[in-house]
């Protein structure tokens, strides 16, 4: 019988040792590395950005206007704070008295929020009590930005002297870093940020202060150049056009940062902020935006259908019905 299974061949001598070593290394790498590569990599979405809402109101408007905002969309913010000049059962505002100038009030509000509530949000939305804000679409827009960037959003305007600022009636969103920079660097320094009374031009002063501390004014339009922060009422933007003879329309038309074509602004399908003239409409808009469904018509459009809808102002069902 030939000595097929003689162990003499396996003896660690000469070349056998090297062969055995190579074999062992291969074995080790294959068996111990394989389980690792078999496990698929899990990609986890980062947590959605937290929005802290600051809603500015006044005592005479508490029961007429602010309470309706409180009942509808404000709950969708991660945290919210009403700021007013008197207290209230339901709104529980932070009260600032004896300050009549809107710029002084805004400085005080932002400093207060930085001091007491900075840890509660990544982004800070400042708006009035008659704005309708879709907070979920705001989160979606801010997903692609980091709260550490020095940026702020709103309805962008350009003053005749070239200063870029945000319109006051339509919501302003600060990143956490921008708010911090504003509170620490701008508010304390008189040359960067004036503390005089500014009246109704207070957002221009805000724009100037933020520009002085290198905060960028961001573009809040969507991929199809639809506007997400709208200056006027929903009726006006969706159902009619601007009227140059009206003073507040003229103010907007003269100073809008983005060109206004044909006296109307394209409204984004991912709208974030409207101003409401008649506050009761906020209930209608909230109901339609969040609750109602249309049977058989899907609501999540992809980008192609969005473009079609924006251009033709028509619905999908209309395109394909006989």
């Amino acid at each position, binding site marked *: 019988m*030939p000595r097929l299974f003689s162990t003499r061949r396996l003896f660690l001598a000469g070349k056998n040792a090297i062969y055995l070593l190579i074999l062992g290394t291969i074995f080790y790498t294959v068996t111990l590395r394989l389980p690792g590569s078999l496990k698929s990599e899990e990609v986890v979405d980062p947590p959605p950005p937290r929005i802290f809402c600051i809603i500015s109101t006044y005592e005479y408007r508490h029961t007429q206007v602010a309470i309706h905002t409180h009942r509808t969309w404000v709950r969708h913010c991660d945290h919210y704070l009403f700021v007013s000049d008197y207290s209230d059962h339901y709104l529980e505002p932070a009260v600032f008295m004896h300050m009549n100038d809107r710029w002084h009030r805004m400085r005080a509000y932002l400093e207060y929020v930085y001091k007491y509530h900075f840890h509660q949000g990544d982004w800070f939305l400042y708006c009035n009590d008659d704005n309708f804000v879709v907070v979920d679409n705001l989160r979606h827009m801010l997903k692609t930005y980091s709260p550490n960037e020095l940026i702020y959003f709103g309805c962008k305007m350009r003053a005749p002297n070239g200063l870029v600022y945000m319109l006051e009636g339509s919501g302003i969103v600060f990143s956490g870093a921008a708010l911090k920079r504003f509170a620490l660097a701008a508010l304390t320094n008189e040359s960067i940020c004036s503390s005089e009374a500014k009246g109704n031009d207070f957002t221009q002063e805000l724009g100037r202060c933020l520009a002085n501390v290198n905060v960028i004014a961001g573009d809040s339009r969507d991929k199809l150049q639809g506007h997400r922060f709208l200056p006027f009422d929903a*009726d006006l933007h969706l*159902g009619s056009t601007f009227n140059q003879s009206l003073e507040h329309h003229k103010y907007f038309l003269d100073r809008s940062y983005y060109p206004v074509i044909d006296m109307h602004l394209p409204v984004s399908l991912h709208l974030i902020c409207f101003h409401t003239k008649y506050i*009761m409409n*906020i209930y209608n808009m909230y109901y339609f935006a969040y609750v109602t469904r249309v049977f058989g018509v899907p609501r999540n459009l992809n980008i192609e259908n969005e473009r079609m809808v924006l251009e033709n102002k028509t619905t999908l069902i209309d395109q394909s019905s006989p």
Partner: protein
Amino acid sequence: MAGEYITLENPATYPRFHSNANGVASGKYRSVQRISTKHLILLILLVCSTLIVSYVYWDVMVLTAGALPLSRGTSLAVDDMESSGLGNETLAEKLHREVRVLCWVLTTPKYHKTRAIHILRTWGKRCNKIYFMTSEPDDELPTVVLSKPDSYEVLWGKTKEAFVHIHEQMRHEADWFIKADDDTYLFLENLRYMLYPYSPEIPIYFGFNYKMVGTHQKNESYMSGGSGYVLSREALRIFAEGRNDSSKCRQEDDHAEDVEMGKCLFNLGVKAGDSRDEQLRNRFYPIAPFGALLSGNVGMDFWLYKYAYYNARSCMDCLSEYPVAFHYVDSKQLYVYEYFNYQFQLSGRTQVAERLPKKIREEELVIPESDNPLY
């Protein structure tokens, strides 16, 4: 070292062994019939190619298996949209085909360009057919010119004439006939969803139920004219044929059209259906949504609460998810409603699987009685 051999004395005893020249068999022997190399190679090639083909076309095979009718259960709206490229229609398109609705709108030439045209551009285009009942034709609107003038005093007469005209000329164009004002907003898809369980041969009509005014029989109800009411084909026929009966329907042209319509239909035996959803929330509402959502905006002596047939509580949850009609919507608000319901995108909204409801037969139709707790 040399191997050892088995030496066979007599090769004839073991005929399968090949012996070499000197009568000695070699060490190897074959006890099984082996496949020839050619066949083996062919077999391996066949198996490998089958494996490769099935690996490459795995997805295609799964998809075509999925398209077989056996594997399709009840269709979801989401699936329908995705597979629409393969020729399947959406649920909304299916309903558009099966539940045909003819809309007619009471209007007047004064409002053709300020209200009626906006209705046509917003929800009007979703009706299977839409007609504007007015006193003059218009180049942009599909109008029907009636003989009655456009004034409130003859509104009932105008309504009668409109329904009769539709019954005579257009009754084959649709299964359901809805009347609306020029400040009404309708959700046609939700209307079809609501009407799907009912056959158009049942004499029934739907709207926002009010308790009948004045002296009336128990459980007599009429539908609000402003928020629209919809008649089945059978109800339309009964109305058109029975309207000249003066004991049942008012022959003069005055008085409120919705009250007279309700009386006439009640007397002719047409049922006043319950348009609420499964959770008994209203789908038709005679004012804008905020009236139903905001409690305390108006006092409890408001006409809506007084005359509502069913409980008309106002709360944030008190309107259906699939509303059908609202009233007092001005022409700009029409576009706002249109935008928010059909175009607006809310990120993070979950898709809901929608299914068609079961059909209801006339025998098993149950209409609840009035239960307004207030009056």
